[in-house]
Structure formats: structure tokens, C-alpha cells
């Protein structure tokens, strides 16, 4: 049984991530980041494990993790990913997605970029319109986020706005204006149009239920899962806002 080293931090940790190593690295990672939730004051923290060269015989870690730096985070940390060696992308319960930068020279964290209303329900700019961002996945420089609003956002790390957003649009065909048509032919034609519309478009839906998680399959394809147990593959090369495939559990 390996040794377990426990350290008490006075907060509930929702996510912990190892810092990714450069491809040619041989030693195991020595730095990890944690994000907390359910606190009035949530924090992102960076910890270091052991000193270089103090790994035991089996490559296990000795000693407690040491806190290097931390920074305040607004809302619960719902998901967290390292974008590269220095940047961390965090999805929040307020609906915002933040990129933090870890400065290694003086061991501090700072906010590099924030997309404030990445996920929202009704109105993008009302205070309580935010929907929690439930999943974040990175493939430098692209970042994909999903949320409780059923929206999928594709960001690029250095760009201010979303590159692509797959969401619902609310432009229903309005047939009420045709209420007073009395011609039978036109009426039948309208019905036919109804059915055609029905069959060809699925309206612009990303997902009607909450999206719980997302991952990259290929550089241009992602896989999402929602709260009713459906897996959907989305291809960003396609212009339509439709899943390429749906699997149901």
C-alpha cells in the first residue's frame, strides 16, 4: 500500500489538475493546481510537491504539498484545464470563463483574460442570467466550453470574442399572419411547407438539457454528454449547428 500524504486545506476542492509536462520530459510532474467550490470566497491555488530529486525509490512523492500562490475566483470552480505550461482555463458557476496566468518568476497568479458571459440563460446582460459553465477542454490554442444553458462555445486563447457558438436561436417561422387565408390550395401548401420545415431542420439546437462534460476526439471534433444520457459528436468544420452523431445510453 503506497503512502498517502494528506494535508488539510480549509476549503472544498472541486478540481485538481497536474501541470502538463513538455513532451520530452522524463520526470513526473511536480506542480498541480486546485480550484475550490461552495465557499463565499473561492480560490484557485498552485501547489508544488516535493523538492526536485527527493522522490523516493518508486518515484513516489515525499512530504506535503506546499502552497505556492493562489488567487480569488468569482463563483464555484466548475471545471479547470491547463492550456499550456503557464495558463489555466477555469469555468465558473457564474457563467464566465477565465484564463489565469501563473508567473513562475515571482510565483503569482493573475487574470490573463476573461469571457464574462460565456454561458447565460435568457438575457446575456442581466445579473442573474448567468448559467454555470460545466465543462472546459483545451487544445492549445483552442478552448471549448459547455454549460447548463446547453451552449457550446469555441474560443481561441488570444481572441476577445468566441470563434463559434453553437446555441439555440429563437426565430420561429411565424404563420399567424397567414390566419386569414381562405384559399384551400394555399392552406394545403402551407401544411406541406410545415412538414418540410419539420423534416429538414432541427431548429438551431445545441442541446435542450444541461451539458455535463466535453472532450476532444479530433482537432475539429468534440464529444459532449448531457443530463439525459446522450453523447453527441460535433464537427466544427460543418456550418450547421447540428451534431454529426447522437448516441443514446
Amino acid at each position: 500500500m503506497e503512502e498517502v500524504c494528506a494535508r488539510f486545506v480549509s476549503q472544498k476542492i472541486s478540481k485538481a489538475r497536474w501541470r502538463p509536462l513538455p513532451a520530452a520530459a522524463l520526470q513526473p510532474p511536480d506542480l498541480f493546481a486546485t480550484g475550490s467550490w461552495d465557499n463565499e470566497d473561492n480560490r484557485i491555488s498552485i501547489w508544488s510537491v516535493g523538492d526536485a530529486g527527493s522522490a523516493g525509490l518508486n518515484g513516489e512523492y515525499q512530504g506535503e504539498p506546499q502552497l505556492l500562490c493562489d488567487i480569488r475566483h468569482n463563483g464555484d470552480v466548475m471545471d479547470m484545464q491547463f492550456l499550456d505550461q503557464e495558463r489555466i482555463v477555469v469555468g465558473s458557476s457564474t457563467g464566465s470563463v477565465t484564463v489565469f496566468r501563473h508567473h513562475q518568476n515571482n510565483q503569482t497568479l493573475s487574470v490573463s483574460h476573461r469571457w464574462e458571459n460565456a454561458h447565460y440563460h435568457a438575457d446575456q446582460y442581466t445579473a442573474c442570467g448567468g448559467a454555470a459553465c460545466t465543462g472546459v477542454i483545451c487544445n492549445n490554442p483552442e478552448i471549448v466550453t459547455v454549460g447548463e444553458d446547453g451552449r457550446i462555445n469555441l474560443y481561441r486563447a488570444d481572441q476577445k470574442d468566441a470563434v463559434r457558438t453553437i446555441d439555440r436561436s429563437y426565430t420561429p417561422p411565424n404563420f399567424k399572419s397567414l390566419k386569414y387565408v381562405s384559399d384551400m390550395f394555399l392552406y394545403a401548401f402551407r401544411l406541406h411547407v410545415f412538414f418540410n420545415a419539420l423534416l429538414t431542420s432541427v431548429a438551431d439546437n445545441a442541446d435542450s438539457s444541461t451539458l455535463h462534460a466535453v472532450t476532444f476526439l479530433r482537432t475539429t471534433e468534440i464529444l459532449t454528454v448531457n443530463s439525459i444520457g446522450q453523447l453527441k459528436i460535433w464537427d466544427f468544420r460543418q456550418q450547421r449547428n447540428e451534431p454529426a452523431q447522437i448516441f443514446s445510453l
Partner: protein
Amino acid sequence: MEEPDTEPPLTVVPGADPSRTQLCFEWGPAEMLLCETLFGRRGGEGRVAPGGSAGPAPTGCGVAGGGDGAPGPSRVFVVRRDQDIYMETLRKLFNESHGIFVGLQRCEEERAARARNAQLVQVSKNYRSVIRACMEDMHQAAISARDSALHSQYSIQVSILSAMELIWNLCEILFVEAAPAIPSLCKAGPLLLRLLDWVQLHICDVDNMVREVLGSENPSKHKLFWNVVNIFVLQGRMDEARHLLSKEAIANPTSMNMYKILDDLMKKMPVPSLGNTQTLTEMELKWQHWHEECQRYLQDGTFASNSHMESICKILLGDENAILEKKELMTTWYHFLVTRLLYSHPTVKPMELRFYAQAGNIIIFISSSLMHRKITSSMDMFLGEESSPEPLDTILMAAFEFELHQVIKECSIALSNWWFVAHLTDLLDHCKLLQSHNLYFGSNMREFLLLEYASGLFSHHSLWQLGVDYFDHCPEYGRVYLELHIERIPLNTEQKALKVLRICEQRQMHEQVRSICKIMAMKALRNNRLGSALSWSIRAKDAAFATLISDRFLKDYCERGCFSDLDLIDNLGPSMLLSDRLTFLGKYREFHRLYGEKRFSEAARLLLMLMTAHIAPCSFWMTLLTDALPLLEQKEVIFSAEQTYELMRCLEDLTARKLDKQKFQDDDVETMKVEMLRLALARNLARVIVKEGTLEGS
């Protein structure tokens, strides 16, 4: 109702001014809301009150509400009695003690009384080590705090924690270890040894003195030398005292004789030891002999020339005055008590303690004008507006007198948080020391305290998860309390809601599951997330809500002409059967899909079935019939004669029903639709009769 024992303390809420406006209030689960009303005591402009800093135990913080005109904005104050749970450094205490508590409840009852006793002592030691760890952290925080207010807050907490540990340790010695239920285990004297340990552990100024003296070049000439020797003797640390005395003997050869005798006496002192299997009588005999020997030497004047050694001999004889002379070294009355016992009655039994621990001891002690710092620093936190005997003294006194209920009561009054009394009472209950003393509410003391503590935890935004386990282990009211509290946890993300749901589902709290799912479904519905709402109501098996959502879907379809969230409806599976409306929705969508795949005859059959089997709501029949129109107008004949007759019947049923409720308005579109349908049905009938009447192949 009983009378309160003490006057309730006056609490000042910073910023609230009752002389300016009338205040109203409302009790909450763990806090109180105080609000400024518009009714002033006298008319006039309101002053802007400065933001309040934390007062004594309760904290008030003001939230500015809107307010136009008149005497300034009304403010709402939140007054919390227990601000300890919000201290980050104390979270360790709550979390770790939670672990110990749950472990205690769940561990198997040991059969052998001895093993059980050892188990309980271990639990008690675990609790104490958690308190000490927390004290350490708090001490570190106090040192590194730059703000002086914060520093003092932390220091106060450190002294509160050390007082708690002191009390707990004494309770462990007197109640848990003593285990009066097992008389055969009461060997001679372990109680006194443990009390000595207890005293040594908690009077820590001694170590500094000792270090100073031993570190000096010539210890025996140090001015504190005799102080150290005396304190060793007072605390029963004979070996260390002898070691120091030997240095004095070397430095001062003239007193070698006296030293040898004293050393011998100290060596021969019968000490009750834990491993010793001597009986009580043996021990007492030995002690009596030794006592007489000391007496002889004293009366012979052996130590007459050295006052220090003489006073040591008197102490060995248990002379109260001699011991009292060293008051400043002992610093507390309970030290005095233990020393007294050591030198007058070392084989004391727990039950006999009360005769020694009478109020007289305190009066002798506190009447001295010298109040040592150690006393006041431990008592600081208890001193509010009360000036009477320090609560710590009262608590310890009650413990010595074996008044368990008094101990618990005094602790409850003195501390601002239920943590201490809840855990201590639970431990004592496991030792079977508390009689089941029914309170007014039908539960016993242990359960009452645990319920109060857990309720306090639930008011915290994060510690609510701990409270769940505490409620689980309250047999009588725990479940009810949990049911009420768990519904009121604010759920701002789905993840948190799922966690809460899992807790409810594990405990078969179906009502609460339904209620929480309904809340989440309503939220989703309000945000127009129909799929999410539907999945929540399916989880709760809430047929009524599922019907509501299906109606919304259908309404959306009627308005927009197409379905939203097809992926959800297509994949309902067996949960379609939850409600009739939902089944209809699923089947209707299937009809559309069949039409899309050009499987017209199956689509036609399904459509008909929806109407004839009464799965479709009556309000939707018109839409269904209208959907049948394209099928009727297809080039090939889809509906058979039978089916056409059925459709006609449905149409007539529908129009008949409508005629009953008809207002005398002419709805052009409606009548036109009905006309069209009749025409289409008739035409289809005509074609199908011809087709069915035709022989195949001819």
C-alpha cells in the same frame, strides 16, 4: 418554563440606532434579521452610521436597502450569534471532529468492558489532539497576522481553545478513564497520576524557568533555582527535583548531610504507579510509614538550618500552609488541589474528589491580590459583562464534583458555539454516564445538543455536508430535522443539486427528492430549458410536472410549427410512460418521423391510434386531423375504408363537442378547416372504395 439563571447579556448591533427609528426583527434558523422601519422615534434627518466592526460574540453587518426620501435608507442587519463557524482556521476542527464522531458512532461495540474503555479513551485523545492541532494553527495565524484586530481575535481563539482542551482533558480523566462502572479496574492511584500529568501539561511557564536555570553556568546559584526545585516537588516530579538538588549539594558541601536525607526521603516516596499491582491497603501502609518518617526528621530539626529544604519537607508532609506559600508557582487553584492530594491522600478515588474540591479552595486562592497572567488569559473569553467567578473555574469545579449536567450547562452558557458540548456529551453518553434525562421536547440531552450543533452547521454555506451525518445519528428527531433542512440548502448549480439529491436518495427521503427536482425543473422551465426541466421531472417521477412540460412542448409546436428539442423527445425511452401527455408527445413525434421516412401507412395507423385510443388530448384532435390532410391528399391511397370511417367519426365527435360550446362567432378558419377535412375524407373514401373493390391484377 424555567427561569433563566443569568441576566441575558446586552448585545449592541453596530450601526442600528433604536433612538432614531423603530426596529423590527425576525428569527431565522441560526441568525436574526433586524430591520429599520420607517417609524422614527422623532422626526428628523437620519444620520449615516459608520460601517460596524465586529462586536463581541454576535456580529452584525448592515445591508443597505433602497429607500427614497424621508429619513434615509432603511437597512437590514443580519445578527449572527455564532461567528466561529466562519473562521477558516476552525474549519479543521469541525471537519476532523466530524470524522472522529462518525467513527465513534459506527465502530463496533466491544464486548469486553476493558477494551471498550480503552476505545473510548482513544476517541477522547483524538478529539484533544484535534483541538491542539487547531490551537497550533491559530497560534501561527496570530503570529503572522498584520492587522492588530485580527491578531487579538486569533489570540482570543487560542485561549478559548486551550481552555476547552483543559476542560476536556479533565473530563477525560475523571469520567472516561475512571469508568466507575468497572470497580475492579480502580487500582490504587492511577487517578492521581493522571491528574498530575494534567497539571504538568497545562502549566507551561515552568518550562521556560527550567530552561533558564539549567542553561546557566551555575544553576544552584541562579535566583530561580529554588523556585524550580519547588515547582518540581509541587508537581510530583521527584527525579528532576533530586537531580537539581544534587547540583546544590555539590556546590554547597556543608549541606551534604541534609541533602542526603532529603534525597533519600524523596526517593523513598511511595508513588502510585500504573503498572503497579499493589493493593490499596499496601500502598496506604507504605505511605503512612513514609509520612511518619518525614514527620520525625522535621521535628528533629534536621532541616532547621536551611529554610528551603525545610519548606520542601513540609510540603512533602502535606502542610497546607507551606504549599500555599508557593502560590505564585502554582498559579491556579486546581494545581493547588492536586498538590494537596498528592501529599495528603495519594490514593484518592474519583468519588472522593468532591470533598477536596470545595469552594473553600477557590476563596483561599483568589483572595490573594496577585492575579497571575495565566489565569486572566484563560478567562478572558468568558468575561463579558459578568464580573462574578470566572466561568472556567465554575466548570472545573463542577467537574471535580462529578456534576456532569452542571459541567455541560456551564460550558453551553460560556461558549458561543455548540461544538464543544455536543461532542463531549456524545462521548459521555457512549460511556453510559448520562442518565436519559428527558427534556421538554422528548429527546435526551445528547440528541438535543447534536441537533442544535448540526442546525448551526446547516446555516453555513459550505459545512452543511457535515451536518448530514450528525442528523443521521440522532435517532428520534434527526430525520425530521434533516428533511426540513436539506430542502432549504440554496442550489445555484446543478452539480450541487445532484449532490443534495444523492444524500436524499441514499436515505429514501422521497418527498425531498421530489421537492428538489421540482425546484430545479421550475428553474429550468423559467429559463426556457424544456429538455432540462423534463429530465428533472422524469428523475423525480413527477407525472404532473411531466404533463405540464409536455403541454408546453405542444404549445410551442402549435405556435411555431415545429418541435424544439427533438433530440430529447426522440430518446425518451421507457420514461415516456411517466405521464399520458408525455406518451402522446413521444408518439406524435414518432408519427412525424414516420412521415419523414415516407412510411405513410404506418404513420397513418399511428395517427389513427392516437385518436381512437384517446391518448391524444381532445384539444389536440383538430391538429391531428389537420395533420392527416396531407396523407389524405397523397397520390396513392393510404387510409383504408375502415380507417377513413374512423376518421370521419372522430371529426363528427369533435364538431359535435364544439357545437355545444360554440359561441356565436364565426371562426372562418375553423369552419374552413372542417370543410376541407370533410371534403378530403369524402374524396379518400371514394378512392379507397374503388380501390378495394377492384380485383388485383385485372
